[in-house]
């Protein structure tokens, strides 16, 4: 592909700014926490975007892959592995889990994949809740040496990896096959696309990213009062919501959606408590029903409207002159 230097420069600048932020100024911890949460959400929503937005398979069990990443990373790290390897280990464990559910369900068309992943998240939550009834925590030495900056960088790196994976994916043959499956499964199959293979590949890549996000969360949080919380359906729902609000099947949509969601929940959660999830649910349904292309879609629509207005103005002007 041709390299677009202007675009590359802009992206490089944005990345440089994010890298420089903790070096140049000392931000308050709550803002750093917010940034790390944002990066985790970007990773998760890009992960859902690969399987849901580009391949068209609705995954309702992202929380299972995320939680698996959290758990495995936590225990690998506790056993003395360096955190960067532990995070990769968490990602790989999520890939194995995805294989278990993906191989039987993706073979069939219809709702089986959604039901299977949904069931997987529920089952993981039950099993983990029964196995680790006590609090899951790191030894005191880890907690004593807690510093927010390495967490920030790890989250940033993983988010950049997620965005880069999606970028290279959609410009590759694999991405083309995925989009063909989304647009028309039968037509893709007839054209010689091995739909089962590409669906499974998309699921595995997506699960790996979700596992990485889980690893970052394990590194970020250290201890878990209730480990079942990382398997709760919120971790599925909120990434799906940010993908849909931003615009599914686009590179920039999930990023915009995540920013929107994280900022909004920061504002709402403090004031409204449980009711803010009700508002999110209503907002989500409205977006799915009335603006299925999300923010990116409405930007496109607005642009079309502007050109339309421009054209009619110039047409009017031409008529007046004539």
């Amino acid at each position, binding site marked *: 592909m041709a390299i677009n230097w202007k675009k590359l420069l802009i992206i490089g600048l944005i990345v440089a700014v994010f890298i420089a932020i903790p070096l140049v100024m000392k931000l308050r911890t709550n803002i750093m926490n917010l940034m790390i949460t944002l990066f985790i959400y970007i990773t998760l929503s890009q992960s859902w975007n690969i399987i849901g937005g580009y391949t*068209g398979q*609705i995954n*309702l069990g992202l929380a299972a892959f995320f939680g698996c990443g959290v758990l495995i990373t936590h225990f690998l790290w506790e056993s003395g592995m360096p955190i960067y390897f532990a995070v990769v280990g968490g990602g790989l464990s999520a890939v194995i889990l995805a294989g*278990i*559910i993906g191989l*039987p*369900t993706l*073979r*069939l068309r*219809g*709702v*089986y994949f*959604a*039901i*299977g992943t*949904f*069931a*997987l998240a*529920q*089952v993981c939550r*039950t*099993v983990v809740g*029964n196995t680790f009834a006590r609090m899951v925590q790191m030894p005191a030495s880890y907690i004593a040496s807690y510093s927010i900056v390495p967490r920030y960088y790890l989250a940033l790196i993983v988010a950049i990896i997620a965005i880069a994976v999606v970028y290279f994916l959609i410009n590759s043959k694999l991405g083309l096959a995925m989009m063909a499956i989304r647009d028309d*499964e039968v037509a893709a199959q007839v054209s010689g696309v091995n739909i089962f293979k590409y669906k499974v590949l998309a699921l595995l890549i997506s699960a790996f990213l979700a596992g990485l996000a889980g690893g970052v969360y394990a590194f970020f949080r250290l201890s878990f009062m209730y480990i079942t919380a990382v398997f709760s*359906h919120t971790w*599925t*729902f909120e990434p*799906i*919501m940010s993908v*849909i609000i931003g615009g599914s099947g686009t590179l920039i949509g999930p990023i915009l959606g995540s920013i929107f969601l994280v900022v909004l929940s920061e504002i709402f959660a403090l004031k409204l408590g*449980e*009711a803010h*999830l*009700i508002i*999110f*649910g*209503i907002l*989500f*349904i409205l977006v*799915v*029903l*009335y603006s*299925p292309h999300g923010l990116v879609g409405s930007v496109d629509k607005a642009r079309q409207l502007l050109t339309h207005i421009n054209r009619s103005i110039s047409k009017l002007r031409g008529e007046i002159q004539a």
Partner: protein
Amino acid sequence: MGIVIQAAAYGIVVGAVYGLIALGLSLLTGVMKFLNIAHGSLVILGGYISFWLFKLWGIDTYLSIPLVIIAMFLVGLVLYKLALSPLLKLPNIGMRIDTSMLITFGLVYILDNAMTILWTPNARSVVTSYTGESLGFLGAKFSVTGLLGLGVAILTAVALYFLLSRTYFGKHVRAISQDAEAASLCGINVHRTYLISCGIAIALAGVAGVIIISCYSITPNSGLSWLLISFVVMVLAGEGNIKAILPAGFIMGLLESVSALAVGAPYREVVALIMFILVLMFRPQGLFTKRG
């Protein structure tokens, strides 16, 4: 031996509840091509309505069923009008299924959190004068509430079966589930049939909720766990096979109670998932369908 029979007695009752939930689900999936993730939350909502009828007016749980049916039928109509009918404009059925899953997943959030605010996260159940009573049969003890629940579930399923096979409405439903466009060309009012069958499906969820609150207990978040096993029951019965759903529910319930003896009750969802994967791998058309 006694403990196995006792476990089977438990399994039949819980299986009837699964069957009832799965009936509503498969009515929605078969007729309208919607997958309702919020069905479990609606079951719990039905339970809470019955709970309120008991607490506020002292109406017995099983006598409250007609009221719950009416209330949940109305909920179903509102749900269809507000959230599901816009989906009919989508160009193809695949998109309709996917979008309905997303919408009802959002609905789970609205319902669960609204119920948490209204009824607090504590486990609720209804204790009537006959709650502790039980009847001996074949060396096993059936609780009276369980037997009543079993009876209600079977009656409801039979009533639904007659509604679908013997009335004009049922004929419309079957025609639409085969081919909605052709049915519409033959003069069937597709939208009205959708509306009413959505109401019926949600009302069935309400009945299941009443049985659950009288035999077990409910919390605002327990809907998803009931829903999950009912999904598996639906897959066991095979797509669109309404007749086989209650038997499939009994099989699932028995399997669950027997496995609870072997590996422990908390792992019932694991058993359901394993069953789901096995059925998909070896008999994806369901246990009760003949053709492959």
